[in-house]
């Protein structure tokens, strides 16, 4: 346990500069897009006024008021980039130990005790990064909403409450269950990705690729098959359906971790 | 110390000791380094040092009692024997070399005397 905590600390120590700068850059860019949208909207109105020789209120009526929902419409794309970066980090956190300037993987695999701690230390690092990423996004949205309201002239603003686009609403609900679902989904993705990486690091080249393809096919079959059976049989209540889905999901989650630990113990190659 | 890799290292160590006993660089009853020390000093494996000491004990060159450092033997006869043994060995080698080029004994003896004396003289001068 102590070693696991120390390793997690070590992992974060190795990446925190990169993580912090990426998260800050993303937050900065997000806020800048909101500011940019407000300024652009105002200029549009001004330009229309001088071009069409109309009053300000007429111009606003034509151009339409700007809502926060519109002003923050780029957020989803930036968040998508963030998700891609997190996935990249999940890959990098393993491969750097093999391909980096030193072969740290030797040291990790030779540490006394169970190798599971290596897996869980990397997994925890990812979990912490994901959670802080989600948390910070929420802060950025609140912050940019405040900035939006403060910057924009009252006449220009479409009066919506914290009006988020639909995708963002799903992502940034404060509903605890929803947050948990998002985090779990993210962790599942990470764990699945970890398993694929460890398959490659264990079997390499053709054999490794083959196993990766098989695992990907397996998960697609499980998901599609599960849904197909549920739909065709049509005997389950919706609550039962979600229970079954959750059970399948949890089982598969456990499988990916079990498989990864086995690979680390028996099959991994430096 | 340089080693001949074709003959056992432990015997070379024994011989190194014998040379020092013959020239009385190591005197009768003198304490010698421990096995561990001699290994580090000569740059050999501690096992080899152990084997060399065992060999020297068997040849009664050194005596080892429990809990005290090994010592060169007090037995003057053995020291004498080491000297003759080394002389025999050197002479045998020399004769072999000389016979190989077929030089008669008389010439060899005269040569040996002059060279031996001149090198001795040079040693004194130096």
């Amino acid at each position, binding site marked *: 346990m102590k070693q696991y905590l120390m390793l997690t600390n070590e992992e974060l120590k190795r990446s925190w500069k990169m993580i912090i700068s990426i998260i800050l850059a993303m937050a900065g860019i997000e806020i800048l897009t909101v500011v940019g949208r407000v300024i652009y909207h105002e200029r549009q109105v001004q330009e229309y006024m001088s071009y069409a020789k109309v009053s300000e209120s007429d111009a606003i009526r034509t151009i339409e008021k700007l809502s926060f929902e519109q002003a923050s419409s780029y957020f989803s794309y930036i968040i998508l980039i963030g998700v891609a970066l997190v996935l990249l980090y999940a890959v990098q956190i393993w491969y750097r130990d093999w391909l980096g300037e030193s072969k740290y993987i*030797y040291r990790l695999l030779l540490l006394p005790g169970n190798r599971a701690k290596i897996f869980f230390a990397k997994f925890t690092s990812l979990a912490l990064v994901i959670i802080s990423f989600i948390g910070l996004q929420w802060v950025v949205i609140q912050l940019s909403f405040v900035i939006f309201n403060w910057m924009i002239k009252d006449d220009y603003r479409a009066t919506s409450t914290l009006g988020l686009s639909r995708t963002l609403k799903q992502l940034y609900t404060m509903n605890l269950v929803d947050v948990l679902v998002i985090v779990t989904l993210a962790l599942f993705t990470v764990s699945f990705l970890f398993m694929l990486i460890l398959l490659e690091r264990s079997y390499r080249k053709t054999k490794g690729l083959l196993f990766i393809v098989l695992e990907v096919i397996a998960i697609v079959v499980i998901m599609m098959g599960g849904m197909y059976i549920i739909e065709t049989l049509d005997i389950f209540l919706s609550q039962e359906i979600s229970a079954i889905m959750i059970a399948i999901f949890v089982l598969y989650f456990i499988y990916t971790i079990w498989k990864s630990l086995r690979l680390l113990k028996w099959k991994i190659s430096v | 110390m340089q080693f001949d*890799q074709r003959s056992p*290292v432990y015997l070379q160590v024994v011989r190194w000791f014998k040379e020092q006993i013959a020239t009385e660089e190591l005197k009768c009853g003198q304490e010698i380094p421990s096995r561990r020390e001699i290994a580090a000093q000569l740059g050999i494996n501690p096992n080899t040092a152990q084997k060399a000491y065992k060999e020297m004990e068997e040849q009664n060159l050194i005596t080892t009692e429990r809990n005290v450092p090994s010592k060169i033997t007090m037995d003057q006869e053995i020291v004498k024997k080491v000297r003759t043994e080394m002389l025999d060995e050197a002479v045998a080698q020399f004769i072999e070399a000389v016979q190989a080029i077929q030089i008669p004994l008389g010439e060899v003896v005269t040569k040996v005397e002059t060279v031996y004396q001149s090198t001795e003289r040079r040693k004194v001068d130096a």
Partner: protein
Amino acid sequence: MLEVHGLKKRYGRKKPILEGVSFSVRPDSITCLIGLNGEGKSTILKAIMGLVPVDAGTVLVDGEVSRDKIAFVPDLQTMPGYMTIGDALLYMNDYYPDWNPKVAEELMGLFKLLTTDKILELSKGNQAKFSLVLGFALDRPYLLLDEPFAGIDLFTKEQIAWIFSSHYMEGRGILMTTHEIIEIEHLIDRVVFLQDGRIIDEHDTEEMREVYGKSVQDRMREVYQR
């Protein structure tokens, strides 16, 4: 005794690199695993440490299947690049219950290594010395060294060789791989020759000299040039 039984290993569809390798390393002795480049010497060490999976074979340490009694010094840097030597020593102290800081400190002094030096900025010779510190400062009865003298200048070699004649050897069975043996021949107790994935010959070095009048080098010539 460290016993290796019937190690078999094949990479991909190529010819197997190990075709049933068996040998043992006695405690308190230095065994040298000799083979030309690419004969699988490193693979054997990695297999013993569980760093590569094998197709068959077992490794027993004093009769048990456990790696806790073996320390391994590979021929490359294993500490993360951002660390200084001091960081690395603390790391070892944190993770290894059998880490011996006293030995580490002594060897650091002997090898004139500085704790403030960045690991990645060390010269090849100092890297090798530092790796040896990491290996010898673990209080473990067996130590595996992969090519400890590769690419190192003569004087560094002599410094490193010294350690094998010192008291740091006490209570240790050492297995080292090498493809050039000249400067260290007299240090070795036993040689094991590896060729085409098999052990083709093994000898006690002193016996080889005494009975056959041959150096390890001589025997290498006979084995690999026939």
